[in-house]
């Protein structure tokens, strides 16, 4: 196996990253088909960011998943792990055949990521609201150990309803953790619909700023903006939060129009329609 380190901010072509994002969408559709249930649209909103993080931004060593100097990536919105697995497999963290076992009895790959079963998963998640705190702990550890790894935590905007997120925000600000970077996948939708109707959390960036973070606000589907924001984030002198405005279900038109694709299953014709739309862009 290749023992090389994938350095930070690699020169990965932006158009190739855009294609990776759509490939992540296709793989998500394929894996949901195995489980007959899954979170399509939660992956579709952050597919560009998954691609940018793993193929360009993060410092990684796939041959040694627990390499102590790696950058960490925590997925607070653990239900999007289905979009992370194909990327980890392609980078060489585990055999791609594992993907075919997704959710089947004894598979390492379930709906939510398990750090002890899936190489490349830096921390288990599933219970929304915990991982920003875990990330604070990792960032503190980096400081105590005098290591320069960065800890990235992606949370959902619905996740910001959880109180523990704000405990974590407070502590990151207090300890001025400039090695902690957050991303809010602000797709505006929870399971019950529009987050601002269910339990409003805006203005997100202002709130983090008041807790001592620097912030950035971008279109999370604009690859150029994503890559630039990820580079800026690494220069902050304090914890940094990127509020990425995204669309749930992005990339498949009938899912963009209907918030209830948070969880679901596509029958054969609908699956073909969704895949066809994505493949058209890839041609």
């Amino acid at each position, binding site marked *: 196996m290749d023992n090389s380190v994938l350095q930070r901010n690699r020169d990965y072509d932006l158009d190739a990253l855009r294609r990776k994002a759509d490939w992540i969408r296709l793989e998500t559709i394929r894996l949901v088909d195995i489980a007959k249930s899954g979170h399509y649209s939660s992956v579709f909103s952050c597919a560009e960011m998954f691609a940018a993080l793993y193929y360009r931004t993060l410092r990684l060593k796939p041959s040694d998943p627990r390499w*102590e100097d790696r950058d960490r990536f925590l997925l607070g919105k653990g239900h999007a792990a289905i979009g992370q697995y194909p990327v980890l497999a392609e980078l060489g963290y585990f055999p791609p055949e594992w993907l075919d076992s997704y959710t089947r009895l004894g598979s390492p790959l379930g709906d939510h990521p*398990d*750090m*002890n079963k899936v190489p490349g998963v*830096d*921390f*288990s998640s*599933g*219970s929304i609201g*915990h*991982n920003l*705190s*875990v*990330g*604070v*702990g*990792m*960032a*503190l*550890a*980096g400081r*105590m*150990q005098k290591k320069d790894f960065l*800890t990235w935590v992606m949370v959902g905007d619905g996740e910001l309803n959880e109180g*523990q997120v704000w*405990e*974590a925000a*407070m*502590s990151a600000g*207090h*300890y001025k953790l400039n090695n902690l970077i957050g991303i809010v996948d602000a797709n505006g939708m929870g399971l019950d619909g529009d987050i601002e109707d269910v339990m409003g959390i805006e203005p997100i960036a202002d709130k983090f700023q008041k807790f001592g973070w620097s912030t950035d606000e971008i279109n999370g589907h604009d690859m150029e903006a994503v890559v630039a924001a990820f580079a800026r984030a690494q220069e902050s002198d304090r914890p940094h939060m990127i509020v990425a405005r995204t669309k749930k279900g992005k990339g498949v038109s009938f899912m963009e129009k209907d918030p209830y694709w948070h969880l679901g299953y596509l029958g054969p014709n609908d699956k073909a329609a969704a895949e066809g739309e994505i493949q058209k862009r890839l041609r």
Partner: protein
Amino acid sequence: MSIAPPDSRPMLDHVSWNVLTSTVKLTQFPMGEELVALARRREDVVALTADLASSNGLSEFRDTFPARFVNTGIAEQNMMSIAAGLASAGLTPYVSTFASFASLLCAEQLRTDLAYTKMKVRILAHHAGVSMGFYGTSHHAVEDIAVTRAMGNMTVVSAADGNAIRGLIRATVDVDGPVYIRIGRGAEKPIYDEVPSFEPGRFFQLREGRDATIIATGIGVKAALDGADMLAADGVSIRVLDAAYLKPFDEAGVIAAAKQTGVILTVEEHNPYGGLGSAVGDVLASSGLGVRFAKLALPDDYALVAPPTHLYRHYGLTGEGVVDKLRPLLASLSEPA
């Protein structure tokens, strides 16, 4: 530190006290000292608290190793998950807060972030049971044994006094996974003259006996010893076991006690469901052995308002309470079958 040194404070009445001066009386709270000693030997040891360092003695750790100490403020759930992050990077965090908050407020962080993930985090859960007395039910932990024992990968231990705390911190230092260390209020009557060497998953035998066995944990151990002393005056010989390890659990020790003494009483400062008594009852029921068994625990209710020692007397967690509960079992031995 903004706290004035003692000699610059105004003269106070000798009975006056505050948070800082009260810790002097806590002769059974060696956590700060023990962790400082541990941290001198091991660079991976770090400590956390949620605004309780001045109460639980971890201020000693904070002042000795400020860069290895994290105070999260009153945010216990955040503290548990931060500890998980620290542990994932190879550190060994000792987190400290009241047992009620550690086990109930943070039950999900314990389960999902520490136990499921098998993080090497040690939870110093102090002021367990009803040892907070009249501070009331919000500050009592009488469900924590049940909650933590039901979590896979979780080791659960319980200290009867200060030396037992030291012994358990030492015995569990290398456990691969989280450890819930149940601790009292620091004012317990000493049980151990020196730091005991606990064997993982085994009871610690404090007294040998033929006629009955008392298996006790926490402050129940003192009650068990006192009760055994009272009955010894009547010629009854009682084995006393400290269930310092609640998980893994000494099933062989329970079976041996059943076979060799025929009578078992459990004593604990916990709800009657899911605690030490339930653990022993499980083993006995599965063993098929005929044995006389009773458990002495708190009622399935919320404690009255009272100072802790008054609560122990009221609920019979004393030598007298042990004798009252044990006598009927002993008397029945001599009745015709």
